[in-house]
């Protein structure tokens, strides 16, 4: 596979998903980056912005199996991972796989479930396997979790612990579409578009799950110059010493920045990473990994503000300035 072919495939995927998800090109790109980089994506946005639709469309285009879990306060870990159930006919316990045994998993409103249920996803997300009753079962390949949470309501929620947040490759903020986009969306509905009947749209499968795994492996061939490793290290190091940041990004953050940078480079038909890949993706990759000082939060400082400050101080390698 050449970089050009890789980019062409990604363009086709984008175009197909973009047919049903209007005005969310950046989100589609970032989710695709997350998929290619073998990561998981946390999407923060109010309900009704098409998150479920995107996962379903993405699953169809990527030729993957998709499942959805609606997280609620009474959701149990076994409801996610599955569990051993006694089979009276066979007189033995049998493992009934939970919805996590899929390729694309939409964990809707993940912060509605208590910590122990959220923790059930930890192993799945990190090790791509599930352990129940002492038995570890691998998850199908590829495995991708897209979790969502609502930024508005905080009553009855369980904020994700930092350990779990760190396991998400990216955190994306979804906002309302523009007026023009919303009008186009309505026009599509008038023409008969039904999000529930996705098959009627005629989405084409662009790749298979095997192709997708191959593309994930291809990213290892993307060259990263030594200067760029310095640039990544510099950015991450600066998050740790920023005066408004209590806890900066972990080394996992550096690795995530590198992996997403490679994915973006490949999607743009390059076999090498450039500083713009890193700088563009830094907010999405780092924002959920920073814990701010309480006084900074009181002052209205956000993680994105800190990252922008860091990016405006980190010197880009081989710049002309």
């Amino acid at each position, binding site marked *: 596979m050449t970089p050009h072919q890789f980019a062409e495939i990604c363009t086709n995927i984008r175009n197909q998903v973009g047919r049903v998800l209007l005005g969310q090109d950046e989100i589609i790109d970032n989710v695709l980056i997350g998929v290619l980089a073998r990561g998981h994506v946390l999407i923060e946005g109010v309900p009704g912005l098409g998150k479920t639709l995107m996962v379903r469309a993405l699953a169809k285009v990527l030729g993957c199996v998709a499942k959805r879990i609606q997280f609620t306060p009474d959701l149990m870990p076994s409801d996610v991972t599955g569990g051993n159930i006694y089979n009276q006919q066979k007189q033995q316990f049998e493992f009934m796989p939970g919805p996590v045994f899929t390729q694309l998993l939409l964990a809707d409103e993940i912060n509605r479930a208590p910590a122990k249920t959220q923790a059930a996803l930890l192993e799945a997300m990190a090790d791509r396997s599930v352990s129940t009753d002492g038995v570890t079962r691998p998850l199908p390949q590829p495995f991708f979790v897209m979790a969502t949470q609502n930024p508005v309501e*905080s*009553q*009855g929620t369980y904020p994700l612990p930092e350990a779990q947040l760190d396991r998400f490759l990216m955190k994306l903020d979804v906002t309302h579409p523009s007026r023009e986009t919303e009008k186009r969306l309505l026009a599509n509905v008038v023409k008969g578009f039904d999000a529930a009947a996705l098959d009627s749209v005629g989405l084409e499968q662009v790749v298979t799950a095997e192709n997708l795994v191959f593309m994930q492996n291809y990213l290892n061939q993307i*060259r990263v*110059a030594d*200067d*760029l490793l*310095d*640039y990544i290290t*510099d950015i991450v*190091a*600066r998050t740790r*010493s*920023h*005066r408004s940041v209590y806890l900066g990004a972990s080394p996992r953050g550096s690795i995530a920045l590198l992996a997403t940078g490679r994915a973006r480079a490949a999607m743009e038909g*390059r*076999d*090498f*990473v*450039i*500083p*713009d890949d890193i*700088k*563009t993706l830094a907010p999405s990759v780092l924002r959920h990994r920073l814990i701010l000082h309480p*006084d900074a*939060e*009181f*002052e*209205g400082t956000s993680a994105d503000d800190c990252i922008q400050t860091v*990016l*405006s*101080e*980190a*010197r*880009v*390698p*081989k*710049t*002309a*300035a």
Partner: protein
Amino acid sequence: MIASALFMLSVIAAEPSLESANEQTRKILAHDNYGFCHNPKYPLTDNEAGWCPPVGPEENSRCPAYPSACDAPRAVLQDLGRLNFSRGGEGKSDVGTDQDPAKDDPSKEDKPGETKSGKRKQPKRETYEEPEAQMPELGGLGYVLFWVILGGGVLGLIIIIARNSSSHKPEDETPAEPQDADPAALPAPAGPNEQLVRDVSALLDQARAAASAGDYNRAIQRAHAALLHRLDHDGLIRVAPFRTNGDYLRDLGPQPDLRGSVRQVVRDVEQVQFGTTPADASLYERVIQRIVPIVTRRGDTLLMLLAACSLYSCDGHKSYPFDRSPSGANAVIELGAAYNLDIKFRTTSLTAIDRAESLGDHDHGRTIVLLHDAPEPGASEWDRLLDWADNGHHLVLAGLPPPSELNLHIETGATTHTLMLTADYDLGDLGDLDLLTADDARLVRSDALGRPLLRFTDDSLYAIQYDRGYRSGDVTVFADDRLFTNGGLMLRDNPELLVRFLKDLGARDIELVDGLLDLGADTPADTIANTHLTPVILQVLALLAILFFWRGVRFGRPHDPPTRSRRHFSEHIEALGTHYARARASRHAVRIYAGWALERLREKTQSTRTPGLYPVAQAIAGRTGDDENRVMETLVEASSLQGDGGDPRIAYSRKAIASANTDDLKLMQDLARLVRLVGGPR
């Protein structure tokens, strides 16, 4: 005294003889600025053409081109407002045909320079030369303030320009984090020389030099830097160490064509910088061929724009300063200067003349010459002027209708242009001066007062002098002002007569009054029009508009707004309150406040050693007159909160939350009131 005498002697020694005034004038008029003496196609006005008959077709030694100019097309006078300054210039071949006033003007049958009414037409000015600016009389403090403000303004501008030009951070910006100073955290700079070079042509030269040396990697980098700095200079992008090529491309979003070109360059450069493509001659050629058109195109556009602005300001033909035209008086001033006569145009109103003005150090007084187009004084001004002359000064009326007191008036009708000195005019043993004037204006007096100085050869009077007062003051009336103009100096012995006349008056300080006096502007628009700077102002405004569209509201290098390192305490409290409100944590807030308030109330009522709330309530009620039970209720409610460890995230219903917030606020207000009544928090 000795020094003064030596000075006078040196002045006298440096002054040419009066007999050489004509030669002095020849030298003065020999200067190219006096175009009417050197340019055969000089466009004369009708009034100036009045000199043509006396000059005759023969060559004039001081103004050799004047006879030819008499045959050239007349000037096209443009009415530009009250001042009428503009005169069409050389090379307008059509002016003598279609626009020649002599053909179209009803007064063309009159003698040159005369209207049918008998009053000479106002000489129109070609261009206006600003009089020397003079500071108004501000007084000591005002003078100091003026210069302090002016100096401060200039200094401020310099500081602002220097700040905008420099790329350092604002002073009030938060200082860099300690790790910023760690050189290990930053990539090593390419070298001091390369860091500093921002000149585009120098960068391109470096690129070519590196390419010729075979260092294509460096050549491509330098060429890329040249491109970025050109775009930065044009205000299309903002180059900074923390910005990527992608940032620059996003800056170029509004210009898709340019963006596409730059994107191609960037791809090639990044392939070398971060990819595996080796830098070679072909890649360098490709990069440089894409960069050079972009780099040169931006500058060319700006240059063409500036050139267009400059060209617009040029009217395409030569203009002639009024003061150096035949109607002007610059040669008179220069001639006077050669003879130590300080001749200048008066800039303050005649109403400012002091009747009792002193005669100066040498008791010679001053001389004021009212030219033909000077503002005609009113009755009170005439009184003032004559009183001033009575006090020992010298008033000369050159073509201006004299005051009625002199029983004298001007009329036309002289049959000759040749003048001669009268026997009453004692200018020494001069012999016969050969004098000429252009007009036929003559003086007619109703009495025999006054001493005739000059008369025409037909015996009509041209100049009369009246002695005034007892301090050698006088008023001299000329039938016209021709002898006080540049044109008058080009003929015969007129220069010598002028110098002798002015020297004979005795005053060294001579002021000419012409039509510009009191010609102030009524409106700001008039002021701009009078300055004749409208094209310049329009160009400046156009430049500002260009800068605005180029750079935005701020023309300097953009800076982030200054950030405060510390916030006010009240802002922290406000942020805290907002945060509590957002978290619906009013119960938490009231619990903390209630604990604090109970402590204060115990202290103020000195009930710290007495257990229970009742003694506190009793003391408060006794001190404030409030109902004891009501106070007790408030205290009990506050006290009950101390054991309430409820989670602020308890899921209240919306109605319950609103009700709880209201109750919490009321309790806090009640407690605050009690604290205030017992003496405040301190």
